[in-house]
């Protein structure tokens, strides 16, 4: 094949790896995802847990795109500090990823578009230059086959057996025509050939991956898991409008809708979407909408209306980096203020924040129940990382999902009543609820202040009674709300607190701090509105708490202070460049702040 294999010095020893990070990067059209997908397949066979993310500009074609795969013995819920292997289809990939390369990392570089840019890689990084693209076009008449080459070479580097690699490819491409599959397999073999030329023969792998016991796993994103949780809890109506990074929820539901019975509508805008969901909810259908930050901002009037009129609704907010259009493909947690306080007026509203795909499932199911139990809006807060990144997780406990429709009245019960008042003042603040279509349950639902019959009223005493009634609802469901997840030394003085996308990285930072002798304890709230007592207790018990969040102004910290936490104890660790924390970065930030005293 004639590649430049001189000057390449292979390391003498195979490096053992329990935890590996691989990036494939290039232009949008380069199909970097294909290599990652093939690799995922192969590494899952080893029983490794996978976490996968991508880094794509909000443009269609062109634009730099990178896919990153982490494979490790346990699920870390995020990517690692450094890249062990980089497959770079262009210069930009080297420039962007260079600083993240592990000192003894391996770079496979496609020199078809130009020579390796200078000064981007450390001295000990091993570079394997291959003109993939040129070869692919020359030998196989299509640029895309370079992924086959690439995978072949990477497989050899990682010690994936040739036959295993071939197997992965057959499975992945099983829907392709036979000819196309053959061409890809040919490319794969050419990739092995390249490896041979570099001296990486079959069995001579540079990296030796750990083996783990293979347990049953789903490979699923937060968006997909949220959609499934909704379906599992009897979710039957979804209306949405496309928007990055929330669209996959609509896509996922559409894909499965007809199997299980769920109406999925692409509305003309977010206002229509949220109000279609409200309409469905009024008839008793379990309804949800989803969007991302600017779309959720647009829904604020309607969400406040659900709070007032006491209409069940689940709203998923896949937060992007804001404000406004901001960076649609980048991650942030900067809508906490909006979700907890964005509407007009005072009304009960629940905000739940899962930490991984499994929790997305359970929390989506729970939110669906709570919305009907408390007859109020319930947010599921995701951030782009949680929403779109894929991880291997244990299968969901489908059996555990129970349906709770709250105080929904059926015809028979209604008939036993003397009077039925839609907004009856009750001890727990929740009024029994009758659906259009039910005989003897006729009622008026309104966003105006109203009396118990639902008739508009501005009478001051009624007003107070109604406001108090609505406010009480939060206490009525408090026990159902998911508490914080804690770990670490319960006597530690230092607390770490973060939610959503901080889940994994906080855990890794905790372990590293522990290794360095810094004892900490972690708390991850899963309910942000209301702020629960266990969160306040945690803060009370620590002497200083690092609030780890993706918001420049510290919205989570402000929320906690607003709930009564003492400002002087809280220390913000904030990131707002659109990227997640890496474990090392977070650890160092905490250590630095600790050193500052």
């Amino acid at each position, binding site marked *: 094949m004639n590649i430049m294999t001189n000057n390449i010095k292979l390391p003498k020893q195979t490096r053992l790896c329990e935890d590996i990070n691989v990036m494939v990067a290039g232009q949008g059209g380069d199909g970097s995802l294909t290599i990652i997908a093939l690799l995922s397949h192969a590494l899952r066979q080893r029983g490794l847990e996978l976490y996968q993310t991508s880094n794509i500009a909000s443009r269609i074609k062109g634009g730099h795109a990178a896919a990153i795969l982490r494979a490790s013995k346990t699920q870390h819920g995020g990517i690692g500090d450094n890249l062990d292997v980089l497959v770079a289809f262009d210069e930009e990939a080297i420039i962007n990823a260079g600083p993240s390369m592990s000192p003894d990392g391996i770079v496979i570089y496609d020199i078809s578009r130009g020579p390796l840019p200078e000064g981007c890689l450390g001295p000990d990084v091993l570079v394997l230059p291959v003109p993939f693209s040129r070869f692919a076009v020359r030998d196989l008449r299509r640029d895309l086959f370079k992924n086959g080459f690439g995978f072949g070479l990477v497989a050899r580097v990682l010690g994936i057996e040739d036959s295993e690699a071939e197997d992965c490819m057959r499975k992945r491409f099983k829907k392709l025509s036979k000819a196309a599959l053959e061409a890809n397999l040919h490319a794969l073999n050419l990739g092995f050939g390249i490896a041979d030329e570099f001296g990486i023969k079959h069995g001579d792998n540079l990296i030796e991956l750990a083996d783990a016991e293979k347990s049953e796993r789903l490979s699923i994103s937060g968006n997909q898991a949220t959609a499934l949780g909704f379906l599992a809890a009897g979710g039957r109506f979804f209306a949405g409008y496309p928007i990055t990074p929330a669209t996959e929820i609509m896509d996922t539901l559409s894909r499965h809708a007809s199997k299980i019975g769920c109406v999925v509508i692409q509305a003309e805008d977010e206002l229509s979407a949220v109000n279609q969901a409200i309409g469905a909810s009024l008839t*008793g259908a379990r309804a949800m909408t989803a969007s991302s930050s600017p779309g959720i901002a647009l829904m604020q009037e309607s969400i406040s209306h659900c709070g007032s009129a006491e209409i069940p609704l689940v709203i998923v907010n896949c937060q992007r980096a804001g404000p406004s259009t901001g960076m649609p493909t980048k991650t942030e947690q900067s809508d906490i203020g909006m979700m907890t306080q964005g509407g007009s007026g005072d009304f009960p509203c629940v905000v739940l924040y899962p930490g991984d795909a499994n929790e997305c499932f359970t929390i989506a199911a729970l939110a669906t129940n709570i919305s009907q139990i408390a007859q109020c809006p319930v947010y599921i807060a995701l951030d782009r990382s949680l929403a779109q990144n894929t991880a291997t997780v244990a299968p969901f406990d489908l059996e555990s999902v129970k349906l709770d429709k709250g105080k929904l009245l059926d015809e028979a019960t209604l008939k036993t009543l003397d009077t039925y008042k839609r907004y009856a003042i009750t001890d727990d603040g929740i009024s029994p609820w009758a659906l259009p279509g039910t005989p003897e349950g006729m009622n008026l639902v309104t966003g105006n202040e109203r009396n118990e019959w639902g008739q508009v009223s501005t009478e001051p005493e009624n007003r107070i009674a109604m406001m108090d009634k609505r406010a009480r609802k939060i206490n009525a469901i408090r026990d159902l709300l998911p508490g914080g997840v804690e770990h670490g030394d319960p006597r530690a003085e230092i607390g770490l607190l973060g939610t959503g996308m901080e889940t994994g990285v906080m855990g890794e930072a905790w372990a590293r701090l522990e290794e360095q002798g810094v004892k900490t304890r972690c708390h991850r709230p899963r309910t942000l509105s209301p702020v629960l007592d266990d969160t306040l207790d945690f803060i009370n018990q620590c002497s200083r708490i690092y609030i780890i969040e993706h918001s420049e102004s510290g919205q989570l910290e402000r929320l906690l202070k607003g709930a009564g936490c003492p400002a002087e104890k809280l220390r913000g660790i904030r990131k707002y460049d659109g990227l997640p924390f890496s474990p090392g970065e977070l650890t160092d930030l905490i250590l630095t702040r600790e050193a500052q005293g």
Partner: protein
Amino acid sequence: MTTTFTPKDPVWCSGCGHYGVRGALVNALSELDIPAHETFLLAGIGCSGSIQNNVNAYGYHSMHGRVLPTAIGAAIANPDLTVIAAGGDGDGYAIGMGHFAHAIHRNASVLYILMNNAAYGLTKGQDSPTSELAQVAGHSPALDGMSMGLSIPGATFLARGFTRWSDQLNGLLIQGLEHVRAKKGFAFLEVLSPCVTYNDTYPDWDAQMYNVDEDPDFSCTDRGIAFQTIERLRSEGRIASGLIHQGEQSAFEANWIKEGLCPANLEAHEPQKNLDTLHDIMTSYST
């Protein structure tokens, strides 16, 4: 019998056109023997937006301009209901214009009654998109909901009535209700319903109304003819009233019904019953 709310008397000014709309609606509902509990009347915000308080039915008071998507959501989720949306010209043609066009386009089986008084009644008389002169905004000719409806492919029922022409109005309401109950799609009925307090258009409209139902040259199945008739009448200072258009187009909810996804609300969706399906869905993510 369980006692529920008693529909109140309207709060409208005496002489308000909206009384006529309410009367015709109550009449049509009883004429067609539609059980009150199967009727779901949703209203926007405005003087018009309190009609649900005065009719014996399930009622809902939406946000300003949002009554149509809500009604569509309800109609799809439970097609057994007779879903009626009501609102004013501000509600439907100003803040609700986008939903209005899309509601016609979607063609879900909802009857939409737009009470047009060429004014914002509740907020004390500002001009609406159907006022000839926009108060603070330079003049532009009034929008015409019938012309707009005709311009949207998929429209299946477009009609205009006038509160003073109660026979025609009653008839149109009945036809509209029949249309939606037969699941033929969206029925749009604009009723000219004067605001006697801020914009008493009775004298003008009395003189301007033209009954197309009685015009042998008119065709409510030919959009071109209907469009031209309205345009011509307008140029003569007249307003077309009657059944403007009836077309065929499968109703929006037909899809879901066909696939057995409706009614979404009533389905006995015990998750247990769906465990197998859910399991299949979940395992499609297995690795």
